[in-house]
């Protein structure tokens, strides 16, 4: 970098040493003042707002020690805080975000959900070369959106080690929801383990972190409630697939501490309000691997934004947040404390915070509910003879889902258009022989085998051992509340309820359909699209200006939060012209989800599963938006 910059850095260092760092930038949180060797949580929460302005933000990335209770371990900090500090930007103004790398390895910051020139997007190897040690990268771009977003490292596994932070974009004009209090709620899954070691363990034994596996006792319990034949038949099906209904999360509380704004539930984060006030909570799931179920016992929430984009207000009591999603809610609490209960989807742990009218007052923390189970619907076997069979004693809430017949749901009109399968051949053509081969292989196998229980147990040919599939599906599962939240006696948000208040701009019909299957092999811990990992793939090309339909089919028994950089995806959820815009879409097991994309952002954009260890195993593609002459096929 140039000399002027080096001088500037020296100056900043000197200021920091004087404990005057906070004065350099109004953005700097209180805890960042003065360099500390050990970082404790405490800085995140309040959204400041203020006068609309251009923003310059200096992010100094360092290795620090993260302190959690009496335990500590090494982590990555931005300006000496973990999670990284809140960045506030203004629509219609510019952002100048400078990433200073003080590590001995490359780093990066990706601005998750922001529309910007692709070179500023912060994905090493796709958007830029990465930030080398002792250099600075500057992302300078006009801000042309509003809402709640976040940022994180896209280098190696740094995201798992604390390089995550909230990012709020204020509207240029008045805020349509001017709440009295405005908080970011950053959720993450912290571990003292080395993430590379976690990866190695998953490769050696993929159920390493699962301490809720089926036991002999469960077998006899099932026999007692369901009888021998049902139990044996049901074990046969899981057994032939070498799968388990207990596989909810790959990485669990065995190694994770779930944090809310950096706080463990033992010393919870506190948000203060005055009675009668309206409070805005901006939930950001900045986890590497963990979905959360969020509720505030005794208080209804009005959802007003999803992934930073406005939605018509929906009142709910609980919602599930996928990794990398954001949801903004409004609440009007009474004059008493409340618990923000954020239970991990597998229910091995939780993050919790307190909303209170006076410091120190606490509300009771509800007990963890029993862990959910995978059901027939997750195998897309709901229409089979065993549709009336519950998969596991504790999971009876899933029963009504499992009982619905497949064909009935297929007719419901909530599904991806039927021509998509036929046209996908065209869409995929030209994306390299590997991708093409795998695609052909799938057509052959999955075909119309949805009702054939044996199809899933059969081998799928040697072309793609990384794809152990459940039968092909036509159901998008957007009207379901999320794994483990079925059959509750309170309201749970569903994707089908999300509606953009104004019609989306591009109302053109898509000119073509691209179908991608989400594929994996839990036993080998392999994850990919269409059975092809990134290193054997070629980019997915979109012609600048075109409108395409992207159909995602989940061949696995896990949810995958699929994130497209640089452009929003309109989720086809039966809301007509008012489809909600998402940057991350969680595709449920065995579901087929349809999205519309207007390719109006030239560039090379990352497209991947946002479960960190899935992405790292190759569940990743580059999507290019380019002119017709340069595009493949």
């Amino acid at each position, binding site marked *: 970098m140039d000399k002027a910059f080096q001088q500037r850095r020296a100056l900043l260092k000197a200021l920091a040493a004087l404990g005057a760092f906070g004065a350099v930038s109004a953005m700097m949180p209180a805890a960042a003042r003065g360099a500390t060797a050990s970082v404790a949580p405490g800085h995140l929460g309040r959204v400041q707002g203020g006068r609309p302005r251009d923003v310059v933000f200096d992010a100094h990335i360092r290795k620090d020690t993260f302190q959690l209770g009496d335990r500590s371990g090494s982590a990555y900090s931005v300006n000496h805080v973990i999670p990284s500090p809140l960045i506030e930007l203004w629509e219609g103004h510019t952002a100048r975000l400078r990433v200073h790398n003080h590590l001995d390895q490359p780093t990066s910051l990706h601005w998750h959900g922001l529309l910007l020139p692709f070179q500023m997007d912060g994905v090493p190897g796709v958007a830029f070369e990465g930030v080398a040690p002792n250099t600075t990268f500057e992302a*300078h771009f006009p801000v042309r959106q509003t809402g709640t977003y976040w940022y994180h490292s896209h280098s190696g596994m740094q995201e798992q080690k604390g390089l995550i932070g909230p990012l709020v974009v204020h509207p240029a004009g008045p805020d349509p929801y001017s709440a009295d209090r405005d908080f970011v709620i950053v959720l993450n899954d912290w571990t003292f383990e080395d993430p590379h070691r976690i990866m190695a363990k998953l490769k050696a034994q993929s159920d390493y972190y699962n301490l809720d596996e089926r*036991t002999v006792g469960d077998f006899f319990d099932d026999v007692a409630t369901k009888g021998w034949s049902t139990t044996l038949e049901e074990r046969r099906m899981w057994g032939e697939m070498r799968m388990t209904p207990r596989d909810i999360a790959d990485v669990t509380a065995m190694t994770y501490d779930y944090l809310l704004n950096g706080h463990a539930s033992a010393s919870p984060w506190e948000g203060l309000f005055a009675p009668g006030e309206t409070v805005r909570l901006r939930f950001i799931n900045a986890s590497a691997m963990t979905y959360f179920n969020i509720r505030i016992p005794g208080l209804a929430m009005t959802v007003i934004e999803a992934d930073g984009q406005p939605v018509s207000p929906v009142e709910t009591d609980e919602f599930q947040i996928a990794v990398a999603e954001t949801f903004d809610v409004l609440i009007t609490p009474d004059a008493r404390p409340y618990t923000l209960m954020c239970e991990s989807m597998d229910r091995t742990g939780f993050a919790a915070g307190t909303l209170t009218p006076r410091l120190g007052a606490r509300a009771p923390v509800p007990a963890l509910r029993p862990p959910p189970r995978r059901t027939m619907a997750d195998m897309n076997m709901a229409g089979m003879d065993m549709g009336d069979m519950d998969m596991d004693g504790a999971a009876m809430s899933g029963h009504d889902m499992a009982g619905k017949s497949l064909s009935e749901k297929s007719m419901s009109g909530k599904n991806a258009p039927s021509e998509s399968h036929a046209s996908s051949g065209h869409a995929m053509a030209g994306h390299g022989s590997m991708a093409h081969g795998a695609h052909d292989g799938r057509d052959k196998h999955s075909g119309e085998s949805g009702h054939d229980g044996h199809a899933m147990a059969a081998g799928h040919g040697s072309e793609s051992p990384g794809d152990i599939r459940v039968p092909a599906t036509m159901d998008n599962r957007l009207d379901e509340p999320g794994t483990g939240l079925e059959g509750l006696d309170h309201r749970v948000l569903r994707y089908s309820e999300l509606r953009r208040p104004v019609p989306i701009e591009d109302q053109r019909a898509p000119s073509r359909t691209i179908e991608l299957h989400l594929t994996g092999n839990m036993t080998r811990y392999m994850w990919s699209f269409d059975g092809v990992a990134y290193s054997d793939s070629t980019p997915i090309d979109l012609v600048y200006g075109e409108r395409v339909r992207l159909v995602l089919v989940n061949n696995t028994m896990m949810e995958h939060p699929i994130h497209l950089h640089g452009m929003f995806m309109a989720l086809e959820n039966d809301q007509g012209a008012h489809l909600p815009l998402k940057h991350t879409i969680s595709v449920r097991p065995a579901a087929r989800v349809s999205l519309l994309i207007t390719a109006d952002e030239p560039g090379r954009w990352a497209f991947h599963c946002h479960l960190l260890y899935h992405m790292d195993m*190759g569940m990743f593609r580059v999507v290019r938006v380019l002119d017709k002459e*340069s595009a493949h096929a």
Partner: protein
Amino acid sequence: MRESIGRWTCLVVSLAMALGMGTQAQSAPRTQPLPGKASLDEVVPAHADPRSGSPAHWAPPVDDKAAYHTVRLDRLEHQGTGDREAYVWDAEAWWGNDRHRLWLKTEGEGDWRTGERDHAEVQALYNRMWDDFWDVQVGLRHDIDPHPSRSYGVFGLQGLAPYGIDTEASLFVSERGDTSARLELEYEWLITQRWVLSPRLEVNASAQRLDELDIGQGITTSETGLRLGYDVTRQVSPYVGISWQNTYGETRRMRDRDEADRFAVVAGISAWY
């Protein structure tokens, strides 16, 4: 001072750019960037990596071909029978990515009292992913004991059979052309999340009679075991169990009566990293 001048210059330049963009975009829409967007000309570099479309010299965004490794001690155990106090080891290690791996295996046994080692073998194998659950292995086996040592070519199939039964099937051809086979099956039955009951079956067979090894044609020996382990951690499990070792057919007739069938109480440890 110099710093602030730099900043102002940048601001003026970018303002000028922003103002200029609108008019330029109309005259040449393909090449000129829209405000806040990249130019279409910037998407495809001169020398592009086929996967990312980015400049070929950039490091990849994810490293899905990375090699991993594991070292696993399946059994290190003491076997007590009426007339014999034996030790047994069975360990393996692999290194590589999903498609290609190098495997090392070793197993053997001996008698504590006499100090005699009955059997000691090592295998070095190339492992190739074959399908969803199965790997093919090809390589060499060398038996240090019994004397004289001998070497074999190995062809193996290893994987997870339905119901999660760990399966290892190997075919051995010795340097003298003798052919033998071994099948190992093991299952983990969870009593609780930590107590695990593991039935294990090993069957050996030979295509010909080998007098120097006391081996006859056909099924030669088997080991049937039942071991109860406790996962102290996910990686360390001490266990106790029982083991039957049997001989069959011609092999049975060739061996002493007290060697024909054995029942042993075993205690040991399994661990991996």
